[in-house]
């Protein structure tokens, strides 16, 4: 690890002036499950690390509950999200938190860390490979080993998948992000937090280098049906191959205000308008859920080794929709 200075401010106001206007020299530390790895592997070599672990106030709390709206501090640990009674109305989120990695990571990792972590592309993570995000001229995954990469690949050279499994459920639930920076506080929908990075000096999120994610707020209406489904090769310490989060309100038997968000298929969490449309105003049945799955795959352009993920996406959307509707999981044997 390259030497760095370490700062542990106790308030956001103390933390902000420690940040730079550009990426590279300063990194924020939350749970450390991503940053420490990157430092040890010489993928990130900050000169200054600003820790958010000592922040006081609501940074590590969940305030409020259920339909009235809950504000989740960015420093809330994954394990506390997974087990939160205040968030019981949002199984799409809590089940996703419960499935992240293993107990050690869940005990250290935070909500903010999950949303702001860097991607897990094995070329990006290799010190000796100069990919697009590290100043290289091309993306080695395009023609290389890409079985876990994006299947929505149009419009960007870098074909990472966004690693956060909390982003899709938060977007499906219509959550907003509270961000502070040198110019003060701002609030944006969580879905606006992400971007497809295409070159060195860009992150997978849209926050400025001198901004801090403070909290995420969910103000979902009562009775909102929601669920997430992940396809994983293993049940332990595993990234999903694909993920889908679905949320809708029920009007009698029909689904209203449907949101379908796809994870691990593109450089950002992806809101699927076509999948949502396939369910909107309809009863959620195996047939309509299947149709939503098929609709979610519109526009895919898989790489040489990952066409199988198209099938997985179709199934994940279908199963998430059925779970949200309260159907008995037909896939559980």
């Amino acid at each position, binding site marked *: *690890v390259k*030497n760095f200075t370490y700062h542990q401010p106790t308030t956001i106001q103390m933390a902000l002036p420690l940040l730079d206007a550009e990426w590279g020299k300063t990194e924020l530390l939350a749970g450390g499950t991503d940053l420490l790895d990157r430092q040890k592997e010489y993928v990130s070599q900050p000169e200054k690390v600003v820790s958010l672990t000592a922040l006081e106030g609501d940074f590590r709390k969940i305030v409020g509950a259920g339909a009235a709206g809950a504000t989740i501090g960015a420093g809330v640990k994954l394990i506390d999200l997974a087990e939160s009674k205040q968030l019981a109305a949002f199984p799409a989120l809590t089940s996703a938190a419960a499935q992240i990695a*293993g107990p050690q990571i869940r005990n250290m990792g935070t909500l903010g860390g999950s949303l702001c972590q860097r991607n*897990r592309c*094995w*070329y990006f993570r*290799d010190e*000796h*490979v100069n990919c697009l995000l590290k100043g290289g001229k091309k993306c*080695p995954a395009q*023609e*290389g*080993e890409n*079985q*876990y990469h994006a299947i929505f690949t149009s419009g960007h050279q870098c074909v990472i998948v966004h690693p956060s499994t909390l982003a899709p459920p938060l977007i499906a639930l219509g959550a907003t992000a509270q961000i502070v920076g040198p110019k003060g506080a701002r609030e944006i929908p969580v879905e606006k937090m992400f971007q497809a990075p295409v070159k060195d000096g860009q992150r997978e999120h849209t926050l400025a280098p001198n901004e801090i994610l403070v909290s995420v707020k969910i103000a979902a209406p009562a009775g909102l049906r929601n669920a997430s489904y992940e*396809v*994983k*090769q*293993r*049940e*332990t*310490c*595993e*990234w999903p*191959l694909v993920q889908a989060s679905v949320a809708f309100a029920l009007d009698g038997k029909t689904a209203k205000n449907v949101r379908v968000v796809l994870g691990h298929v593109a450089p950002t969490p992806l809101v699927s308008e076509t999948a949502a449309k396939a369910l909107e105003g309809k009863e959620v049945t195996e047939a309509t859920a299947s149709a939503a799955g098929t609709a979610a795959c519109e526009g895919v352009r898989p790489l040489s*080794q*990952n066409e*199988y993920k198209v*099938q*997985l996406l179709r*199934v994940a959307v279908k199963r998430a929709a059925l779970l949200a509707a309260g159907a008995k999981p*037909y*896939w*559980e*044997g």
Partner: protein
Amino acid sequence: MPAEGWPKQRRLLGTRVKRIDGPDKATGRAKYSYDINRKGMLYGMILRSPYAHAKIKSIDSTAARKVPGFKAITIIGVSRDWVVVKADAAANTLEVKTPPNKKGGKEEQKTISVTPTVTLIHNNKPVKLADLKADDRVTVEVEQDAVGRELFYAGDEVAAVAADTEEHAKDALKAIKVEYDQLDHFVNEDEVIKNPKKRTVPGPGQGNITEIKEFVKGDPAAGFKEADAVAEGTYGVPVISHQCLETHGLVAEWDADGGLTVWASTQATVGVAGAMAGRFAVPQGKSKCITHFMGGGFGSKFGPGVWGVTAADLARRAGAPVKLMLDREEEITTAGNRPSASGRVKIGGKKDGTITAFDIDCHGTPGYTGGATVTLNALPYVYLDTIPNYRRAHQIVFINAGRAEAMRAPGHPQNCVLTEFAVDDLAAKLGIDPSIIRRKNLPPNNPQSKDPISWVARRNTIYNEQFDIAEKLSGWKEKWHPPGKGRGTTVKHGIGMAIHTWGGFPSGQVNQVDVTINKDGSVTTQTSTQDLGTAQRTVNAIVTAEILGLNPPDITVKIGESQYGPSSGSGGSTTCPSQAPATLLAAQAARNDLFAKVAPRVGADPKDLAIAAGKVTDKKNNKEWTWKEFCARLGMDEAKGKGEWSQGIANQEGNENISSGQVGGVQTAEVLVDTETGVVKVLHMVAVQDCGLVVNKLACESQVAGGVIMGLNYALFEEIIRDSATGRQVNPDMEFYKLGGIRDMPKISVHMMDMPERGVIGIGEPPTISTAAAIGNAVFNAIGVRVPFIPLSPKRVLDAIAKGGAK
């Protein structure tokens, strides 16, 4: 005198005994090599080639030597041993010649200009030119000799440093300036096969692929003609890593007398001490290897390795102990692998299940070089014994990747998958239960065998009994269904089986065990062997305690130090069948010594003395003493016994039933396959295994369960993936090199067949052989289509289904 052999009445042997060092391991009190910290210890690290194939264009360590905390550097692969002709300190030149006794080599003489990046070592100490005189032996390392050195894989060693902290060592490594000329590389087998004329690995010759090695028995063409059905498929298994939980490496420390001690993570303490003595010209008696606990080797930890030799080299240069343990990336890329195998298999058989012909063309890769571990398909697999007509052909493909090392049942898991997949595919074509075809083609009992209780005399009977037990424990008769015709629509049920065989004889090298009985009744059992996973302390404690009427925790077992006498490396499942008999003989000899010494003092004849639980009895005089009372009569003396065992000793007449070899095993797997996602869940594994006399039933069952877990990972998760363009492994970690966790593990039912009349047989390797094949066959049974390559990832399962499986 004929050996007394194993007791007929067994109090402890064959029961379930908890590991006597279990609490030490569970609490962290046990010190592994990684945990050893010596006073003034430095940290060693190795600089490695980032390229799969390159030549060093330039190297400059000047800046590295100035990094804070830097203590020593070695440039790997360039130091040479010379004899001093003339050391001229004024001119800064050293005239040298080649040492004598280099067989057949021409004598070479040269003058070396001694610049600041030239290192001179004499008597394992760095020296200055002025310290040397004519006829001194000297090791000379000229940094610039590394220029032009060819590196054959991403991870090949370039240089190493020692520094006061790990961070400073890393800083120093980063400060070594190396430029490389990149050369063409192949890191995947199909690229080599497409370019058969191009060579990118060491040695002369054209291409990276060997000639076809072929073996034919009978008339395969006629055998296929005779068949009622023929199945043909292309199957394959990937290159996988041992993934030892404790990585390879050691701590090396030189003492003032020129002796070298290493605390190595090894499966051969005596072997490592000997290798170090040879490499550094240290007298055998002064080269010591200590391995009290080690965290997994699986065949990859016999020698000191480049890293171990490098640590000792850095330690002598720095004049301080050096710890050099590999990190996870190094562990996976350089510390050994299990070779791949893939190829076309054709098999024919009759309606009653008789296999009439078998034909295989396959290839595999060990990396850039490899020895005995790549004799894939040279091993006659279980069935091939009885198939009248077969042809097998194999080629080795070399690639620019780290080399193979032996891995838990070398060659067998690969052969088992390739053969057992074909057998099930044939059973499906014949429309019969795969258990029928397996029973039908078992090797027969050999009534001519000299020894009626041996494997050869009874193998058919043993296998059939194993099938009976496995079928009962798995519910085979109720659960088996024709492929693809089982219960479930989206999630389909399947059950499969596979069988295996292994040796498990004692080692060819002698293992010595010493048992000492003290006057306070305490007992010490001492041997240089190591605990690779046999629960070896407990094995030796059980055997000693059984003979002396004590309990395992009463015995102090000292293992893992090379100076405790000869022992063999833990390979080929030889440890328990070598160590348990040696302990038996040592304990019996110590008991006899005790009787001989104490009998006169208690007015007894040694012949009348016997041991019962916790006491010594005198039958004739109807007297008895507690163990402690009796031992107290030793006075100032102690009783001692030595035991030695090897394959040679086992072969001597009268010793047949103390140890032997050859085992069989039958495993079944029950799975659920999600046909929409391709995700495989193993529900239940049954493993039926014989291993002769069971010493510790608990540890045996645990060994078998461990083998099954390893095989499950092989079947479902593990695979080294390399990128053709960069030549680098993309998953040198535990993130995308996948191993299952506790939630991925099935119920595992282990059935040990205890056959004490056969003596002790090794159990380490056999139980991992057939697991992957059984799981692959269960998936075939579930979806009705073969997934030909493992690991059975969602991608591969979905691809197979798309080609015409379930639905």
